[in-house]
């Protein structure tokens, strides 16, 4: 832009130089210079020289000799300013002699720099403004669009492990396929869970019902036969039935305990009521051997956040063990005590105790004490109890009573 105007004024000045008889004449076309003033307030310099000698203009404006008809542009320092200059050299013949006439027009660049700086600044501000606007708009828009996703994620992650209802969060059209896919997945999961649950139930039913028949028939036959060897055979048969059903049951229980321990579903329950209820359910089993289950004094309001089914299962295993390993006509004492940090359920019997076997060894899977004799067991009961204790951040402690019998404590932090 500046160069074009500089070139135009240089050319028009150069064309105004004429040979007049034996000298050069110049009528300076001011219009050429005023063109320059029009674009900015920058100062304008010019110089017309004949063979290097100034004819008119600023003596100190540096000049360069350019080729004929070729304009030479330059940026240089002049009078403590930066100037842009255009130089054109013409050859004009005067008195038969060829003279180099050099026309230079220059203009300072301050105004232009200022303009371009201003333009850049405006451009920058506008750009920045757009950027900020775009970013906040898009953040707002994404936030709004994705909020249903957050709601959805919260709704799904807050669910308990057994909550398999379809998701009903309100979703914009874009997310509807996602919700539909999620619901289909939940549906499939539920179907497969139900199917495996039904399968386990069906399998258990198919195996246990004939076993129950065998056991019942054997028990009736036991009453009818007289010869001792027949009686022994029938007793062994019943024993085998019990052993297999007990192992199967304990294995399944163990799997369930492991599963539930992984997906703890906590409820706040009254531990005293839970203990009393469990003891009441087991009392008939104790009765069979004239074993009294005696419930000690219970703290009132013993509330505990726990998985009640797991605690009940552990306690049932402990009491069941106590009944199994106790002689007839004895007592089993069950107590619940509370201190600042723990609830302790203690089951004390008058049975065979734990001999010298270590607690940790007895609680290992399939391990049984050396003193179990003929008593049926799977070696899983105490393992289950220990896993329940651990799942609740507690411990299972076993020790022999001074004197006779064993004592098992389930310690649960509250």
């Amino acid at each position: 832009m500046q160069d074009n105007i500089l070139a135009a004024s240089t050319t028009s000045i150069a064309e105004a130089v004429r040979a007049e008889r034996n000298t050069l004449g110049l009528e300076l076309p001011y219009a050429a210079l005023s063109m320059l003033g029009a674009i900015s307030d920058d100062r304008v310099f010019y110089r017309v020289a004949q063979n290097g000698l100034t004819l008119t203009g600023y003596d100190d404006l540096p000049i360069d000799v350019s080729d004929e008809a070729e304009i030479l542009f330059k940026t240089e320092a002049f009078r403590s300013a930066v100037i842009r200059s255009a130089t054109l050299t013409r050859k004009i013949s005067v008195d038969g002699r060829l003279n180099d006439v050099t026309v230079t027009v220059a203009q300072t660049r301050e105004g232009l720099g200022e303009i371009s700086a201003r333009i850049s600044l405006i451009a920058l501000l506008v750009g920045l403004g757009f950027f900020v606007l775009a970013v906040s708009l898009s953040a707002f828009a994404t936030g709004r669009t994705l909020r249903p996703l957050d709601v959805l994620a919260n709704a799904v992650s807050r669910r308990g492990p057994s909550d398999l209802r379809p998701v009903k969060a309100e979703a914009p059209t874009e997310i509807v396929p996602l919700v539909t896919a999620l619901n289909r997945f939940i549906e499939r999961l539920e179907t497969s869970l139900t199917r495996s649950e039904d399968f386990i139930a069906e399998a258990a039913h198919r195996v246990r019902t004939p076993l129950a028949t065998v056991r019942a028939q054997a028990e009736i036959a036991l009453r009818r036969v007289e010869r001792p060897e027949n009686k022994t055979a029938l007793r062994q048969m019943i024993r085998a039935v019990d052993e297999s059903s007990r192992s199967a049951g304990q294995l399944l229980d163990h799997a369930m305990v492991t599963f539930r321990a992984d997906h703890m579903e906590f409820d706040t329950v009254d531990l005293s009521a839970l203990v009393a209820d469990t003891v009441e359910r087991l009392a008939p089993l104790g009765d069979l051997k004239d074993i009294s289950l005696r419930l000690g004094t219970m703290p009132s309001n013993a509330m505990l956040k726990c998985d009640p089914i797991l605690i009940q299962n552990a306690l049932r295993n402990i009491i069941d063990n106590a009944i199994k390993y106790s002689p007839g006509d004895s007592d089993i004492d069950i107590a619940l005590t509370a201190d600042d940090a723990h609830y302790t359920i203690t089951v004390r019997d008058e049975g065979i105790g734990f001999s010298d076997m270590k607690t940790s060894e007895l609680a290992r899977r399939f391990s049984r004490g050396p003193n179990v004799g003929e008593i049926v067991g799977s070696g899983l009961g105490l393992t289950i109890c220990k896993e329940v204790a651990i799942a609740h951040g507690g411990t299972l402690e076993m020790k022999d009573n001074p004197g006779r019998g064993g004592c098992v404590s389930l310690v649960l932090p509250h």
Partner: protein
Amino acid sequence: MRFLLVEDNPELSASVVDRLSLDGHAVDAARDLSAAEDYLASTDYDLILLDIMLPDGDGRDFLTRHRRDNRRTPVIVVTARSEISDRVGVLDLGADDYITKPFDFSELQARCRAVLRRHDGNARNEKQVGDASLDLLAGTLSVAGIPKPLRNRELRLAEVFFAAPERIFSKSHLMDRLFSYDEDVSENAIEVYVGRLRKKLEGGNVQIETVRGLGYRLVAEV
């Protein structure tokens, strides 16, 4: 006592009927839920023994209906699975108790007794011999009007004798009724319990006689 057994396996059903009859109960056996409804519509029962998996439906649905209709007859569920593996426990659905297959008859008997006792403390199921009467539910013996509490084994022994007065029971028969097969006891243990029961019967006109070489029997002096 009148029991209704709902069980689709015919052999198991027959054995349970057989055994419960031996204890002096009248038992009707239904093969499925619709038969059970028919029985219930015509007769009053003291206890229902209910299997869960039946050919025409789920015993738990029956249980839910039973409780919804406010029928009070207690129910013991006979199930193939342990409570922990069921998502909805049968006790939550209104069962009074449950027993896992395969079961010990003595345990079934004990659970029935416990449920009946809990359910109706005033119910009487008494057997009278001479001036002694045995209340099977309350588990008490009264001799000449004086109540004598019995422990479970004494009660079961008394039950055997009172069911058939004058009949001779061998030691080994009594052993099978009193002890489970995995209890390591000698036949002499029976003498201990017979001794205890004799002590409880003192003061009346009924006693347990030893029949040399054969066993024991309950006799009333005339």
